[in-house]
């Protein structure tokens, strides 16, 4: 009787540990995308005029729909780009996106926002819910993993240079 109780406790504890490990090992696609977004900055070179002034942080802007909630803030907080912090801004329109280095564009207005950003030196990122519209980097999910396309033509039109290391990871590159 006494022995059986102890066994039950041990099994229950083990089950809890395994469950928590499984949750950690399998983050959601959205969380993965949130983790990826700040990291793109490490593989992109902006024109000098588009870089943050002085000790200012990088600006990672979310224009339109925000699928990440607070996850993006958490991901950005732990990242440094050559010693600069990354600050996440939520914007409603492209009008205020002039100081952004990276802009995640989503939702129904994606097409108009991308058009508004036009030839500005901003690394635009889109997701699969963008009605067929694509930014320079476009997330996809393949084989259960988050991957991305890169439009190098659009990048170079905006004066951005993307590292070959990142290009090597892309599932497709428009050249």
């Amino acid at each position, binding site marked *: 009787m006494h022995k059986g109780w102890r066994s039950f406790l041990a099994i229950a504890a083990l089950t809890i540990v395994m469950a928590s490990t499984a949750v950690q090992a399998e983050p959601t696609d959205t969380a*993965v995308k949130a*983790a*990826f977004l700040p*990291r793109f*900055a*490490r*593989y992109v070179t902006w024109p000098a005029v588009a870089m943050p002034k002085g000790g200012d942080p990088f600006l990672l802007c979310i224009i339109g729909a925000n699928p990440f909630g607070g996850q993006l803030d958490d991901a950005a907080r732990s*990242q*440094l*780009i*050559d*010693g600069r912090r990354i600050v996440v801004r939520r914007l409603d329109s492209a009008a205020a996106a002039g100081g952004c280095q990276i802009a995640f564009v989503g939702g129904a207005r994606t097409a108009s926002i991308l058009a508004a950003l036009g030839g500005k030196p901003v690394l635009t990122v889109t997701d699969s819910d963008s009605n067929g519209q694509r930014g320079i980097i476009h997330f996809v999910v393949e084989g259960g*993993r988050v991957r991305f396309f890169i439009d190098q033509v659009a990048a170079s039109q905006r004066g951005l240079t993307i*590292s070959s*290391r*990142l290009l*090597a*990871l892309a599932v497709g590159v428009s050249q």
Partner: protein
Amino acid sequence: MSPRERVRSGWHSAPIAIFGVALLILLGGIAVIAQNESTYDRARTEQTQGLSDVLAASTAAAVDFDDPAAAQQAVDAFAVNNQVRMIAVYRHDGAAIAGYDRSGRPVPSSISALPDARANVIRVTSPIVQAGQHIGTVYLDIDREAPARRISRYLVISVLFVLAALVVVALGLAQGQLRRVNRELAGRAEALTQANVLLEEQIEERAKAEEQLRQSQKMQALGQLTGGIAHDFNNQLTVIQGSADMLTRPGLAEEKRIRFAQAIVQSATNAASLTSQLLAFARRQPLKPERLDLNTLIRDMRDLLDRTMGERVRIVTDLSPVACRVEVDRAQLQSAVLNVASNARDAMAAGEGTLTIRTRDLGLDEDGKHFVALDISDSGGGMAPEVMDRIFEPFFTTKGTGQGTGLGLSQVYGFATQSGGEVKAVSEPGKGTTISLVLPCVDAALSQPVEAAAAGSGAQPSATILVVEDNEDVGAFAETLLTELGHRVTRAATGEEALEIARRKRFDIVLSDVVMPGMGGIKLAEALAREQPQLPVVLATGYSQDIVEGGSGGRPVILKPYRLATLSEALAEAMRR
């Protein structure tokens, strides 16, 4: 120290030096290996670190964007190197994203489970940094080179060093050996040179000794010769002087006066015969060669030989009918035969035995010359070899004092060689002796025998005669003789003077000495023949090299000392021509 010992000690010291050098080389090699070994790990680590850094850079994006496939692809590219034992790529949170283990096992999934590197493995780590952010770590294990392999590599190097050292040793030894051999050879050459110098000195000394011996032998022979001449001449001079002394005595009976005069003539004849034989030996005798038949000559001499040999010696002749003719001086040949015959008689005990005279045709010799031999053999006691060696020496004689002059065989030798032939002697004690005269043949006809001089030549007509003679005594004597014979005589002391006189005055005949200072008799005769070809010249000589060698040019020659009859005959003969 002998050369051999030097060589040995050289052999001992050279290898020590060379082995020392080899040892130094070996130590140097070991030092290089030790140095190599100590730098090996550092160099290997640096090399591996470079690999690891490159891997870290190339996996940065894959780690950042959690792409295990891309990371594994980069790792696999490095795993191609077969010295790579393990590669592990960990994220910043310690989870493995890619890995490779040569054994095939998966790499630990967590960085904390990674075991320490093994002993024979070099481990390097490289942080994965992108834009200043540390995003992960690469672990790279690479094989240290296997000790066995390193040792074998060092062994190869060592073997090379040892081989090099051995080559040095071998070369050194060979060089040393060569030097020693050269030194030894030089030493031997020097010894040889010294021996040669010694030998030359000995040869020189020996030559000197031989020269001295020859000189003393020559002096001995000369002493014998002069002693012999003096002895024989003194005998004759004693008779001449004594007889002349007697002739000067007043009131000497006519019969005694004639006897003393005849004694003087006889002694002078003997003395002339002596000098004639001496000259014959010296081959300075003026010869009057004529062609004659040896067989006839021997037959003609038979009576003379019988008388010379005495009644108890039997004379046998064996004359070859094919014996050729010879061209020699008849009187000299007769004299030679008589000399040999008288030796044969004296050699036969008690003057009893057989004398054999043979003529033999010898045929042609190697040079194609035809020779004939005249052998005269006796049945006497023969000669010992040491006597044989000396029989032709003048004044060498085995006969008792007063019995022989020692000039007989000398005359035979001189006559034979001067006539172009030779003389050979074959003898053995107890078996008799054979003397062979070998003479060259001539094919021409016999000479006409000289007609006997007209008897009573003293009754010839008176003539005008130029007498040329540098010796006052002989000149005065000739003048006295010729004046006594009824001739008119003019005298000249030199050839030049005679030539001068002959141009001024006419002469019927010239009587000239041959050997004179300035122009000699033969030159004078030639000069006169050009100026007065009809003037006959008679030459007189004791001996003359010129006449022996070149002849008298067909002119009559009379030999000194000449007798009255000889002189008048020669003059008459010359004037008849």
